[in-house]
């Protein structure tokens, strides 16, 4: 059961999760669609609104909490995971969500993201990756393509972009997924799975910034080409894609290759079968490196594991210590140590 579940009361509706604040993203921004999916998923979770907290940093994406009729904290640039940590550790029963951007989460806030994930706090992290700094009007971000020309890189960037999923895996994250703003069904299902995961869930969401980086993902997310250029990975199923579902991914040593079922003797049984929960996330790592145009772009849950959660261990330690030493009191506290009386 996800944190914060409260089964009393009538089931809320999607509208219950909308606030009275005017949404202030640019018309056409991918953020709208993500907001809609989150609002749609919320009622399914059985968590009362008052037990949900959305925490964000700074960026267009980070305005998200204003539009959710839950508790919300629009904090400072890059620091949302730290605030979420404090909330979750001190109030483990709450359902805590972090909304961040590629700049907020991977540039200034990269370190907090990493450490929050390795602690496996039961928080849900939605990273809106538009491969640009939206709010500050169009500088490159750590996920911008190499050589990209932006306001701050008129001659092209000189940096290798970072792969958010790779970072999540290196951070021992226990739920690592990717989806796309406009694939609403896929997105909502992944969000819901993340919500139900117990531990840190990380979702990279490709999000179009139609003002400063329009069409960043168009090459493969456009409706016409999507089925041929993206692949939905599913636990226990072979990696099949394509309009007629005749294409697939086969492994050659460590090297994935695109094959066509029925050609050169390839059958479905030759294909790589996705496993979300292997002992080590090597497969997830490999999938995370696949990119267009060499490969179809994978979306779905790359990796998932069950590991004790930070806040839970901390709680257990308190319970055990209390059982062992008895509950503390002011008198005990003040009189601890070597005391002596003066009369």
């Amino acid at each position, binding site marked *: 059961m996800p944190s914060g579940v409260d089964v009393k009361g009538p089931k809320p509706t999607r509208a219950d999760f909308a*606030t009275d604040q005017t949404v202030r993203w640019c018309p056409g921004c991918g953020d709208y669609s993500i907001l809609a999916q989150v609002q749609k998923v919320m009622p399914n979770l059985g968590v*009362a*609104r*008052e*037990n*949900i*907290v959305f*925490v964000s940093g*700074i960026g267009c994406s980070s305005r998200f*909490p*204003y539009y*959710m*009729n*839950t*508790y*919300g*904290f*629009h*904090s*400072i640039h890059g*620091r949302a*995971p*730290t*605030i*979420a*940590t*404090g*909330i979750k*550790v*001190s*109030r483990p029963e*709450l359902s805590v969500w972090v909304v961040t951007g590629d700049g907020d989460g991977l540039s200034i806030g990269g*370190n*907090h993201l*990493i*450490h929050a994930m390795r602690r496996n706090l039961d928080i849900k992290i939605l990273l809106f990756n538009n491969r640009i700094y939206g709010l500050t009007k169009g500088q490159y971000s750590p996920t911008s393509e190499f050589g990209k020309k932006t306001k701050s890189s008129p001659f092209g960037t000189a940096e290798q972009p970072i792969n958010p999923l790779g970072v999540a895996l290196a951070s021992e994250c226990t739920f690592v997924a990717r989806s796309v703003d406009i694939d609403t069904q896929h997105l909502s299902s992944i969000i819901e799975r993340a919500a139900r995961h117990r531990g840190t869930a990380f979702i990279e969401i490709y999000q179009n910034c139609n003002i400063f980086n329009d069409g960043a993902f168009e090459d493969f997310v456009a409706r016409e080409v999507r089925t041929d250029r993206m692949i939905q990975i599913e636990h226990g199923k072979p990696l099949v894609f394509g309009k007629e579902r005749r294409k697939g991914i086969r492994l050659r040593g460590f090297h994935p290759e695109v094959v066509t079922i029925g050609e050169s003797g390839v059958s479905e049984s030759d294909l790589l079968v996705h496993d979300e929960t292997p002992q080590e996330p090597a497969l997830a790592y490999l999938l995370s490196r696949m990119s267009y145009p060499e490969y179809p772009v994978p979306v779905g849950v790359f990796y998932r594991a069950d590991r004790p959660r930070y806040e839970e261990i*901390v709680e257990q*330690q*308190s319970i*055990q*210590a*209390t059982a*062992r*030493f*008895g*509950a*503390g*009191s*002011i*008198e005990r*506290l*003040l*009189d601890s*140590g*070597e*005391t*002596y*009386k*003066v*009369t």
Partner: protein
Amino acid sequence: MSTETEVVPPRAKVTEIDTVVIRFVGDSGDGMQLTGTQFADTTALVGNDLATLPDFPAEIRAPAGTLAGVSGYQISFSSRDIKTPGDQPDVLVAMNPAALKTNIGDLEEGGILIVDTDAFTEGNLAKAGCKTNPLKDRSLTGFRVFDIPLTSLTLQAVAEAGLTGRQATRCKNFFALGLVFWLYERPVDYTREWIEKKFKDHEQMAKANTLALLAGYNYADTTEVFTNHFRVRKAQLLPGTYRKITGNEATATGFITAALLSGRPLFYGSYPITPASDVLHELSRFKNYPVKTFQAEDEISAIGAAIGASYGGALGLTGTSGPGVALKSEAIGLAVMTELPLVIANIQRGGPSTGLPTKTEQADLFQAVLGRNGECPVAVVAPATPADCFAMAIEAFRIATRFMTPVFFLSDGYLGNGAEPWKIPPKSELPELDVRFRTEQEGFQPYLRDPKTLARPWAVPGTPGLEHRIGGLEKEDVTGNVSYDPQNHEKMVRLRAEKIARIASDIPRVEVFGKDSGRVLVVGWGSTYGAITSAVEELQEKGRPVSSIHLRYLNPFPANLGDVLRRFEKVLVPELNLGQLSMLIRARYLVDAIGLNKVQGKPFRVSEITRAIEELLRG
């Protein structure tokens, strides 16, 4: 646990004295901190007043015998009320040439010097940069030198425990401790018990250390090295239960007490840094209390988590030292804007930059009061003594929760590591911390203020019907919605300032130590309390027209501060910085405050302050 000890009546000639200052110095590996602490613990138990000053080297364990590796522990104890660890030691126990060299300059004329002659090898002399052997070159003629082969005596004493040579050598600090116990009529029992507990899984070590301790004691008792020993009678302390406590312990204890008093759990977010780490170590032990500690990946995360915890309804606390505060300053602004209760403990150290990490200083006052972008007011309190850390820690949370504001708690390395007897307050004397969450939906607005304190409501997640959003953008008055309205911004900036200003009417007025008006007023804050008060007391006894006040509240200032300042002809502000409180006072009250400034990583000597006052009185 409480221990009753009895002094074994010794036979040698006894001299009674009021106050003694002893300094133990040796290599970082020599266990000087331990020796000092044991001496202090026993001294507390026998009923003296005391004050201590540990002095750590910057390196973990610099090469044995070098000047950089010298570690020291000074303790002053007395039959009277004392407030400082003493200007100069009367007794110096030096375990090697490096320790002797770096400390001999401080020893009183005619003071007692105990040295381990075995350590004065050519190698050690060279490492200490001594061209000649000070034990032989007559440079120590002004002192009463006791040159004792501590190492070899220790080795003999512990032989039967069967340790290796190296292990055995390491017992020599207990031998020295035994010696000094005898010299000052202190019982060995407490330390014996301590050794047994500490080394309960290392029988050999327990035995050896005990043997060394007793051997030292007996050596003094039976040989005729020391012709007499000294008696320091119990101090006339107020009746009550006492505990020797360091500032960092008192700080931790105070914060936990605040949690217990308020019924809200304590959340401590911190990243290790000298000299604040001990607060983290201390707090992390109290798992059977409503205390959670979080060692964050850095200082920003530490404060972020503390803010999150405050938002969630805990007592959010973050602790660090100056460089860490620098990193936290953006987030402190967020706490100011979101008006959450938060305490930031800064155990100050020598700066700027990495500076002198193991030394004390008071140079982060500007940073606390003014060191952020925008108009960003916070409350600032500062404890005056190690034990006062307890009271001020509670006070910090009282203000934070009552006014819904971040509060700085400015301690320093000297307070944090120094110890003194603490009279444990009965529960009934502790302040009330009446902390309430908003729960009524009717009329709820996130930024609707208490008309008196201007505090906004503390409405925590989990409360049905109070769902709301806060953040770092300017807030609309009352609703807390984001607002870019110019008039609203001005209003909010002034409201936040006014809220902090109003704390002045919720804190005690300053009390003048001495006459209410006169020639010179000495104004102090923080850890200089002991030295200033001792100096002023001394001069008052001589009839000098000097009084003092000590500020434990630095922002806002107590309401009557201006009045008090104006009743004196001259105002002297001793500080361990270049004049930070001075400046704040000058700006606020247009009073020509004169600074007495020392920036040496060390506390004031009483004599430095008396001298400055005398000069002002003369001038």
